[in-house]
């Protein structure tokens, strides 16, 4: 009996399994039969050199396949192919999602690179509409030849050119005006007026002055502004015969600072008092530099600490240690995130633009005063333009804003 049941079960099993497999194959076949439907290709493919660039780039546009999001809805994306002859071989350049209708093919400009894309060379493109089945796709007509090349002039940056020319002309005019002896007013800057007082205090106490240029390189605007202030401080220090300590983070910054201090000592009529060890290199590691400057503050106990330049996370550590050492502290930076720390820990702080103004305020040289005045004129122009723009946008006029559009 048991044997009979087992034989029935086996026969059923042997019968059902092939049936199930056959059914599954039939299902797969039916799925394949719907997926294999070839989509319509993309149309109106065009390719042109990308505008306003250095070359090595071609911009493509096309009309998406009618089966992308509509029709058969079988298109899941596009592949962009490029070749150096119409017959190929075509190389895939990009894979894009469905709905895409443009692409910028950017190649490398270095000949050694495997992705190098030569200027003034014929290229041919085609775009493939792809489906879920990698074997089912449709190619567009081949477009070409098209060449890429660089442009000498970026028309998208005309607003920048206009403003640069306007700013430069204003600066030159104002410098000439200052040179001709016209009195150019600059309002009082409390932080800078305190510098002379702080140097006097250091002289009376017989203690040195610590000048920190921050972590900027010689190329940073804040550091460049700081050199002028350093020159002024060094000149006063030379006159009062006080000691100056300038620990530097960057070797080139140190070299420029040494030259600045040397010139200041010569200007003060004391070139022999200049000692190269006043300005020295510490390290290019941020927190090692901070550790060294902090140690100097507590060992040398300077009467005045001046922090002018580019600062990052070290600003609070330096300013707090200086306060702990009982020094008068004057700071200035254009780093918005660090200004709060200087404000809370220093006696005087130059906020952003005041750092740049300080150099002109201290020097009173026509060159610096003229450029400071030009900056003020630029700010006035900013206000006027912003008012016009604000009025136009509030009255629904958009063309004025478009004048300020700058492409990359």
């Amino acid at each position: 009996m048991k044997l009979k049941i087992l034989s029935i079960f086996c026969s059923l099993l042997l019968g059902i399994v092939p049936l199930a497999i056959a059914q599954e194959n039939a299902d797969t076949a039916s799925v394949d039969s719907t997926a294999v439907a070839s989509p319509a290709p993309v149309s109106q493919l065009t390719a042109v050199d990308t505008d306003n660039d250095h070359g090595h780039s071609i911009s493509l546009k096309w009309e998406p396949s009618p089966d992308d999001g509509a029709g058969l809805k079988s298109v899941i994306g596009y592949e962009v192919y490029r070749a150096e002859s119409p017959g190929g071989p075509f190389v895939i350049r990009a894979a894009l999602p469905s709905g895409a209708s443009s692409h910028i093919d950017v190649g490398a400009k270095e000949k050694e690179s495997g992705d190098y894309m030569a200027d003034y060379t014929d290229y041919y493109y085609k775009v493939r509409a792809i489906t879920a089945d990698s074997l089912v796709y449709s190619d567009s007509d081949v477009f070409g030849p098209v060449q890429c090349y660089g442009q000498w002039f970026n028309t998208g940056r005309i607003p920048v050119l206009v403003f640069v020319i306007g700013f430069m002309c204003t600066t030159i005019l104002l410098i000439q005006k200052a040179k001709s002896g016209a009195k150019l007013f600059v309002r009082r800057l409390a932080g800078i007026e305190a510098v002379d007082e702080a140097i006097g205090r250091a002289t009376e106490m017989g203690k040195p002055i610590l000048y920190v240029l921050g972590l900027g390189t010689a190329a940073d605007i804040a550091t460049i502004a700081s050199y002028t202030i350093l020159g002024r401080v060094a000149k006063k220090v030379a006159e009062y015969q006080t000691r100056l300590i300038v620990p530097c983070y960057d070797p080139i910054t140190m070299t420029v600072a040494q030259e600045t201090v040397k010139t200041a000592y010569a200007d003060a009529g004391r070139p022999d008092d200049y000692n190269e060890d006043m300005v020295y290199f510490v390290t290019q590691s941020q927190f090692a530099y901070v550790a060294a400057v902090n140690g100097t503050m507590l060992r040398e106990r300077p009467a005045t600490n001046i922090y002018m330049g580019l600062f990052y996370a070290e600003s609070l550590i330096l300013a707090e240690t200086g306060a702990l050492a009982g020094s008068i502290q004057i700071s200035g930076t254009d780093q918005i995130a660090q200004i709060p720390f200087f404000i809370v820990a220093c006696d005087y702080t130059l906020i952003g633009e005041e750092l740049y103004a300080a150099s002109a305020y201290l020097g009173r040289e026509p060159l610096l005063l003229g450029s400071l005045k030009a900056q003020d004129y630029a700010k006035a122009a900013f206000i006027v333009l912003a008012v016009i723009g604000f009025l136009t946008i509030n009255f629904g006029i958009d063309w004025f804003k478009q004048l300020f559009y700058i492409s990359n």
Partner: protein
Amino acid sequence: MANSKRISAIILIIVIATFLLSWIIKAFNLEGSPNNTGLWFSIRDAFFITIAAFLTLAIFSFLYKDNPYYKFAEHLFVGISAAYWMCVGFWSTLIGNLVPNISSSLSTFFRVPYKGLHFTYFVPLILGIILLMRLSSKRGWISRWALAWIVGTTSGLNLIRYLRTDFISQVSNTFIPLLVDWKGVGPFFSHFSLSSTGQFAMTLSNWVIFIGVFCGLIYFFFSKEHKGIFGTASRVGIWVLMITFGASFGYTVMGRVSLLVGRLTYLFRDWLGLIS
């Protein structure tokens, strides 16, 4: 004086003994851990963990006052980092960038792939040599040419960059409607909402930007004394700046606290093993 020296010596012995003991215990702990990779590795790893903990505490000791342990950590840190960055500069800038573009034989010597002769790379090479001329007492003035090149070029480049990002883009970003989706008094009040994306919040935000930018600019106007209406606007400007700095202060301090937590976690977890 002699007494103070004796105390310092005793403290030094205690510190050395403590950290030696810590090293031994840590090595045993690592030896017994599931990730154990051998006795010597345990001793080595325990040594590095202990040294890192010692240096961390030595730097923290600055909070009390300047002391020999802080000085040791400071000098070690400065010396190692200065040497490290010099090596990085030599191998990445001179050998990595310059040599492969100017000399085939030097590229072979330093075992870097030669990229062909590029004459533009001779410009920084010459400027670098000029910069080194400052070591000569007679011809040191030549180095100023290189410095003038660096400062002048970067000033010019930065002028364009700042004018573009801080001026023109900033001007156009100030062109904002002061009444966002304004549909009249009735609908404005009937649809009043304090949602951050709502009409009221957007309108308020645009007003703050508008007034803040104008008054802030007036504060940074140096050609006129800040008196009268100009002075009032300037004071509003500095208030806007101070509120911004206050918010920035709080935000940045939170970031710094997380750094402190990271260091304390190292001490209590990796070194002492008190937390998991």
